[in-house]
């Protein structure tokens, strides 16, 4: 299935420095992120784990530049992030394909925004995610897995230096999910971008990431930062993974006896 794999030149390194953030809902201020400091090296695959609603996705929005943080700074290679940019592409939990665009039109979105014409790279990205032959299909004709593949192609066309993954596989059925995990991992290895992924799935984090950051319940603080020193080709039944899994679940407040 792999035909093109252009390794991108410069994966992006990120420096999060004392980030605070919160939302005012119904007149009440709710702190969401509490003093988050995190240094992400270029080319790392960082998984952010934490209880549901703890603020991991908010952190991703800040890194993407969709919102400015209330406190602290985020540096991308020594430059403060002031807004969104095509070097930091987000892949959301829902594919959010535009229903009025075909698969090809959706994948070409980044080019349209930048005013580029590059049909070849669009077709290459579509082929890369295994959607060749579906270029002219409308989003409502795709299954959930295919739609998420299209969203992946839409992100990859921009040659992101960091791919921000907000639980992109969360809503897929378990079999499609396994396939997509493998493909995501392959893409990250081939292309060499930095990847930051929010997930609820400890096993998914263990399979994909080079490092797992564990967050507390809201307001989110970092309670563990675990490097995963395992070879890239990991087996789900690796005893070292099982140990790590037990460790992380304990961190998350679950008794480790299951």
């Amino acid at each position, binding site marked *: *299935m792999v035909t093109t794999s252009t390794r991108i030149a410069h994966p992006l390194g990120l420096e999060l420095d004392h980030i605070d953030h919160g939302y005012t809902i119904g007149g009440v201020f709710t702190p969401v992120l509490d003093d988050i400091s995190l240094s992400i090296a270029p080319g790392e695959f960082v998984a952010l784990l934490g209880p549901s609603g703890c603020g991991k996705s908010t952190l991703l929005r800040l890194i*993407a*530049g*969709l919102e400015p943080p209330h406190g602290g700074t985020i540096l991308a290679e020594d430059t403060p992030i002031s807004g*969104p*940019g*095509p070097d*930091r*592409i*987000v892949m*959301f939990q*829902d594919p*959010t394909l*535009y*229903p*009025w*665009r*075909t698969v090809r039109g959706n994948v070409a*979105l*980044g080019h*349209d*925004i*930048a005013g580029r014409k590059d049909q070849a790279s669009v077709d290459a990205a579509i082929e890369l995610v*295994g*959607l*060749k*032959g*579906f270029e*002219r*299909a*409308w989003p*409502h*004709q*795709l*299954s959930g*897995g*295919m739609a998420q*593949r299209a969203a992946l192609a*839409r992100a990859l066309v*921009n040659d992101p230096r960091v791919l*921000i993954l907000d639980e992109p596989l969360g809503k897929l059925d378990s079999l*499609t999910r396994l*396939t997509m995990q493998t493909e995501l991992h392959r893409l990250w290895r081939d292309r060499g971008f930095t990847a930051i992924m929010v997930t609820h799935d400890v096993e998914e984090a263990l399979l994909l990431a080079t490092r797992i950051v564990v967050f507390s319940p809201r307001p989110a603080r970092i309670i563990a930062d675990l490097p995963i020193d395992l070879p890239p080709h990991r087996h789900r039944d690796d005893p070292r993974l099982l140990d790590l899994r037990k460790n992380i679940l304990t961190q998350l407040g679950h008794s480790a006896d299951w």
Partner: protein
Amino acid sequence: MSSPNTPSPNQTADTPSGQTATKPGTSSRRPLLPWVAGPAWFLAALVTWRWPDADDFPDTNQLATQFCAIGLALTVAAVLRRLSARAPWAIALGLGFTAWEIIQAKLLWLPRPFFGTPQDLLDVFLTDWRRLGDSLLHSLGLLAVGYGIGAALGVAIGVGLGRSLRFRYWVRPLIRLIGPLPPVALLPLAFIIIPSSRLASEALLALAAGFPTTILTWSGVVAVDPAYYDVARTMGARNRFLVLRVALPAAMPQIFVGLFMGLGVSFATLVVAEMLGVKSGLGFYMQWAQGWAAYPNMYAALLVMSLMCTGLVTLLFKLRDRVLSWQKDGLKW
């Protein structure tokens, strides 16, 4: 519909839901009906031609010739197998004209000046087609300018209301004050303050078309999934792209509902404006025909107007089908 040919290895079961179209009432199931359509119209021709009229009506033989021509055309269509789904309607119309001819032209059952005969109607088209056509063109011209401006403004204002807080602050009260007013209620005022009655009517037509378009565009724009904006923003999209390439296409189904409603109000406004102020157009023609008790002319104008309205609605729906071809299914007009 494009049929995908290379499913990915892992997703063989994941083929897009194909849509198959099967036409109801194909020729194999009802082979006889198309052949009846022609004779139904020949019957109308025969009755018109041979049965003596109850009074001195114009163009009776002319009408019989027309019926005959339609019958011939339908027979040819049957031979060419182009008449299957529409055959029942063709037959019903032929029989309907026969019945009308018998009841009114031959037996004169209904009071005379108010109910005409088919040949009366035909006579209007034969003798007064120039003025009818002229009226149609005037109506269309008025509609095109007024509705066009109103629709364009409505979309623009609706997007503004949906996207800009300051715009909404200033414009929303005005919309709420003026919008729900029936445009017809403003007619007397418009004819006073705007010197040209044509200009006044165009302004009111724009208002008629503009209000529903504004409201539905607005509601369509505020209903856009915020995630759609995030997706574009994360790739660096600026406001211009977010409005023109995200908000507008996402709101398009709603916008078309507004355009359709606006068209309906425009028709009503047009007719009243032409009856009250503008000295041309189908509404004016009808007013004139009624004043002279020329009822067949009124019927003819009504027919032309109905064809105009349905034609324009059809045009709008065709446009919608083109623009919204990405939708799973839509109403068939």
